[in-house]
């Protein structure tokens, strides 16, 4: 035991936009070695900051795995924390004296003399909001303003969803935070939510099931563990999205990471994800992340785009091109090379059938290969609840059918934000508010012209915001899964063809 210094320090000290105010210094143990960290960091971020890149191994113990999603969705960082195996250390905060061990493959069942049950607590509320990102925060605040009691649960240690890692100023109407940087919006909305007496917030809380009569089970892990049984009159599922991945050789090598994962490291925790990066995918996420990597002091050696044209908005592409980042269109990644971490990326030109052309390979010396190949909605809550769903490529994958008021085919289960189909944060705010106002109306509140406000918002969303040519594809996708209340009634009775 004793101090063990890893080569390099990846904590960002100077950043053009974010002032990283770190918490109190604390110490914990990783594989019996003392690690210094700052309060507020996740275990993985603290380890990454001092140079660790391998956080687990495949179940056969052969393939090393590194940080990948960074938001508690994948399985690449499962570790043993204070005796509990399979803990996702990317979303587990550091704690003084914690004992963390890396896990090789499937862990043994912990042998303890006595396992105490977690307390089960049943609570009633007007509305349960699952997911505290843009849609969930806006929904909770809208409902609280109307005087309703709200329970808000989120699996992350802090609220804000993916807004916390957005450093750029948002587009869109000022009423929906246009012109404000994403992480500032998160700060503002989270503060407002935490100040309300009628919003009860549970973080590090995982909704594990939707049961009869809309009862939802939530495993609360932050603070005192609690099995929370929530009995709400309505539920809003604003469960967000996760990144897609693609198939190429050694696509699981440490250093191959979701672009959003790199954003979490550098913009939420102030940890530089690498020194030399290559990005796959030139949609908005890829372009924005390229720019943010440069801000964080990471060299971007290039980007590959499988299509003949850049996927994202012109404004974002122009910015990174000015900074000298080359975008290889009609190219894709075919191989990552490295032993315990990625050292090289191989890209190839593709033919008309999207197949790599032999002999067209280009090799880049890198330590970070970011995948920005799209997002897919987190559908599991809705598929488990039994909502009628449809696969819609324009908005990222499998999503529930919903009314214009965001109600799914399971009565009183609403949806909002990226979970309802991938779009911009502005739409998440709007959908969250539409769902909230509809519930307010249903629970018998029309003191302040709720219906009129709601209908104006639906009108703004469909006749104004989504009419912009830049969101045409998303609009087309959402139209495929949005139905009238009459049609939804038919779908519930199984009387509408095609559903």
């Amino acid at each position, binding site marked *: 035991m004793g101090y063990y210094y890893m080569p390099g320090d990846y904590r960002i000290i100077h950043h053009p936009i974010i002032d990283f105010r770190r918490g109190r210094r604390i110490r914990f143990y990783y594989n019996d070695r003392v690690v210094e960290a700052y309060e507020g960091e996740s275990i993985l971020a603290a380890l990454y900051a001092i140079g660790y890149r391998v956080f687990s191994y495949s179940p056969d113990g052969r393939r090393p795995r590194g940080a990948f999603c960074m938001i508690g969705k994948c399985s690449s960082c499962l570790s043993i924390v204070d005796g509990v195996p399979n803990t996702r250390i990317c979303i587990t905060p550091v704690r003084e004296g914690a004992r963390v061990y890396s896990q090789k493959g499937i862990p043994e069942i912990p042998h303890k003399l006595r*396992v*105490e049950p977690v307390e089960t607590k049943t609570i009633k509320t007007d509305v349960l909001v699952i997911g505290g990102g843009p849609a969930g925060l806006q929904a909770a605040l809208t409902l609280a303003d109307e005087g309703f009691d709200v329970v808000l649960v989120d699996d992350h240690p802090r609220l804000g969803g993916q807004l916390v890692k957005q450093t750029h100023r948002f587009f869109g109407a000022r009423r929906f935070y246009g012109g404000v940087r994403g992480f500032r919006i998160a700060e503002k909305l989270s503060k407002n939510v935490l100040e309300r007496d009628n919003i009860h917030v549970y973080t590090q809380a*995982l909704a594990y099931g939707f049961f009869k009569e809309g009862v939802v089970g939530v495993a609360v892990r932050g603070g005192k563990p609690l099995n929370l049984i929530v009995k709400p009159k309505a539920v809003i599922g604003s469960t967000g999205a996760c990144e897609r991945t693609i198939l190429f050789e050694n696509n*699981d090598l440490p250093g191959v990471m979701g672009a959003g994962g790199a954003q979490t490291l550098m913009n939420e925790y102030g940890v530089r994800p690498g020194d030399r990066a290559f990005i796959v995918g030139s949609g908005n996420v890829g372009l924005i992340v390229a720019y943010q990597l440069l801000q964080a002091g990471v060299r971007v050696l290039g980007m590959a785009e499988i299509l003949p044209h850049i996927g994202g908005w012109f404004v974002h592409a122009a910015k990174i091109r000015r900074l000298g980042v080359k975008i290889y269109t009609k190219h894709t990644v075919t191989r990552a090379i490295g032993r315990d971490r990625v050292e090289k990326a191989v890209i190839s030109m593709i033919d008309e059938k999207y197949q790599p052309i032999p002999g067209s390979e280009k090799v880049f010396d890198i330590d970070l290969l970011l995948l920005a190949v799209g997002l897919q909605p987190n*559908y599991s809550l809705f598929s488990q609840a039994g909502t009628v769903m449809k696969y819609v490529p324009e908005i990222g994958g499998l999503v529930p059918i919903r009314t214009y008021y965001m109600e799914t085919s399971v009565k009183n289960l609403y949806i909002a934000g990226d979970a309802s189909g991938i779009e911009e944060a502005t739409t998440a705010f709007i959908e969250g508010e539409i769902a909230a106002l509809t519930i307010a109306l249903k629970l018998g509140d029309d003191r302040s012209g709720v219906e009129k406000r709601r209908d104006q918002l639906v009108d703004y969303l469909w006749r104004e915001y989504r009419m912009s040519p830049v969101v045409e594809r998303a609009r087309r996708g959402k139209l495929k899964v949005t139905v009238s209340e009459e049609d939804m009634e038919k779908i519930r009775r199984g009387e509408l063809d095609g559903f």
Partner: protein
Amino acid sequence: MDPRKIIVCRCENVSLADILEAIDKGYRDLESLKRYLRIGMGPCQGRYCLVLTARILARKTGKSFEEIYMPRNRPPIVPVEARYFLKQPVVEG
């Protein structure tokens, strides 16, 4: 590209080669592939791999993607420690 080194399901360490072989053996839909390879049954519950697997299946079998890809989830939809569901303490020995 070596299909044995292309990982489709990280949780259960299932490669593209494993899936292609299983399809050839006759596991030609998502549910039977899940049961045979445990694909999608790990801690991420199919979040990343099922859509990729469905695409491979569609290409190999000629079925439509929409027909293949309809994942079902059962509670708990996220891994939860068993102690959350205990009624009384468990004493070993």
